[in-house]
């Protein structure tokens, strides 16, 4: 799903990230670990062409699209619809004056989604759940003609264990963990195949963090989504990642299967990180 070779991101003459190789296949979870200023978030954003003002070179292929050569239109088509982004700051990442349901509907309409996709595990919920959902969706806006769209929305929200009632709320009315789970719900609704998560839990309390990570992990298990997580928390990513890249000062200092990196770190910086853990 993601294939990166010799990626280099520069602001002016300063190289902020250099990644020789990064691959994420379907159903895989890869983590980039590093401290502040290591270039891990830059790497993530460059995969969607969102590093404005930066000079990006190398080869980046996401869902079969050559990101660095793609036209703005091509990029916009994969953004959201095939590759979803979950950002660090929960509520701040949602427009303050837009109801969550409105945001989701606009995103769905933008990508031409009008109803549930045929087949697929996401539409095959149990009968009772489905009818409960349709009752809720009707009470939500009372427009039967939009039923298909509403159904996608309600199912997506329920898949991340949120009450569909949340679609009527504004961002400041929900908690940090709910905001992050809603961001994931957006990915589900749009049928994304890849989720890029930039420190998805570092603004959250530990007890909430477990839930968000749990949801992400569940999606990967059940729906075969590819997951690329950026985090400063080695222990956290060790619980869900297949492979880990450790970055420091813009360079990848170590990479490999999670078990190897954690048990037999080859780079002194990785050892330092491991020792700093409680």
């Amino acid at each position, binding site marked *: 799903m993601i294939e990166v070779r010799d990626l280099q991101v520069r602001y002016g003459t300063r190289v902020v990230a250099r990644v020789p190789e990064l691959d994420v296949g379907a159903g895989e979870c890869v983590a980039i670990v590093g401290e502040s200023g290591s270039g891990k978030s830059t790497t993530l954003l460059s995969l*969607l062409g*969102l590093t404005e003002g930066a000079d990006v070179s190398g080869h980046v292929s996401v869902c079969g699209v050559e990101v660095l050569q793609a036209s*703005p239109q091509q990029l*916009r*088509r*994969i*953004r*959201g*619809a095939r590759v*979803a*982004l979950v*950002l660090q*700051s929960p509520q*701040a*990442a*949602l*427009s*303050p*004056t*837009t109801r969550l349901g409105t945001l989701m509907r*606009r*995103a769905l309409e*933008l*990508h031409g989604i009008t109803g549930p996709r045929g087949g697929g595990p996401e539409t095959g919920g149990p009968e009772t759940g489905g009818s409960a959902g349709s009752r809720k969706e009707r009470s939500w806006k009372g427009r039967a003609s939009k039923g298909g769209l509403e159904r996608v929305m309600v199912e997506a929200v329920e898949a991340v264990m949120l009450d569909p009632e949340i679609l009527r709320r*504004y*961002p*400041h*009315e929900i908690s940090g963990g709910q905001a992050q789970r809603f*961001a994931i719900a*957006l990915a589900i609704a*749009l049928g994304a195949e890849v989720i890029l998560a930039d420190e998805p839990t570092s603004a959250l309390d530990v007890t909430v963090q477990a839930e968000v990570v749990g949801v992400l992990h569940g999606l990967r298990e059940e729906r075969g989504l590819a997951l690329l997580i950026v985090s400063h928390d080695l222990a956290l990513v060790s619980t869900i990642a297949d492979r880990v890249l450790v970055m420091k000062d813009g360079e990848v200092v170590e990479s490999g299967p999670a078990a190897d990196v954690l048990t037999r770190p080859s780079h002194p910086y990785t050892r330092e990180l491991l020792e700093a853990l409680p």
Partner: protein
Amino acid sequence: MLRYLIRRLGQALLVVAGVVMLTFVVMRLVPGDPAVAFAGPKATPEQLAAARERFGLDDPLWVQLWNYVRDLVTGDWGTSLHTRQPVRDDLLLAFPASLELVGAALLLAIVAGIPVGVLAARYKTKFPDFGVRVASMLAVSVPVFWLALALQTVFASNLGWFPVAGEYDSSLDTTSPLTLWTNITVVDALITGNWPILTSTLRHLVLPTLVVAAYPTGVIAQMTRAMLIEEAGQDHARLERALGFGETSILTRFALRPALGPVLSLIALVFAYSIVNGFLVEAVFNWPGLGRYAASAISSLDTPAIAGVTLLVALVYVLANLVVDLLQGLIDPRVRPQ
């Protein structure tokens, strides 16, 4: 919600009370005896005493203040020294004309300023942005009285495209007299279907409206641009980009609404400012509004009239701010009182 409303109303009342006090103080400070001004320079001592009695000038200061407030509340805004009419009646005639001019100008400013601000934000750092910024800075830098004179000279006196002065062709008063309802000529003409006066008023409105609109258009465009650029730099814009929305769509569908809050506050401010700014324009175009009334009041040291105009404008300011504060909740759910 109710508690917020009461608190906000209380605040507004406090400000109005302060304005009344301040007006009173300044009026007491005005040199020249209002009794002399009222009774005339050749008045006998008896006439003067009667005038002093009439205005309560011999009472202690706090009694005078009390009487002043009581009169204001009961609708007695004093008698103008130069028109010899109750100030309230004068204001009821002059204010609608000012409102007509400022209302038209502000409407123009909003309709032009906000889209132009959006355009600048969309193409920030590019040519349209540069053009909008320079133009809006020119608009806020131009002295209104000079712009009024210039437009009047060029488009009315020299080219003759628009009438030079007045609110409408006064000969129409005899051919198709206007029935007054709201005292706002455009509205009255529209309600009563008085087309000759309506078209004449609209033609007379063009130049003064343009002049009064210059400043509000400039600041509204600047504020819209600044707030939009700030919103588009927020985290949520990054998520919207990541969802595949284009820049224009992010600005108009997601950033504009939160950005409108500050713009709305600005509009309230500019509204009051424009009424006063309009004074200078009214003087040039001989528009029968508050400005013309105030100007003649000033030249005749007509304190009750000046105080009336000041109070009225302050009231409008307080009211505009109150309305805008309550409207904020409609635009931005975050400031919606619980």
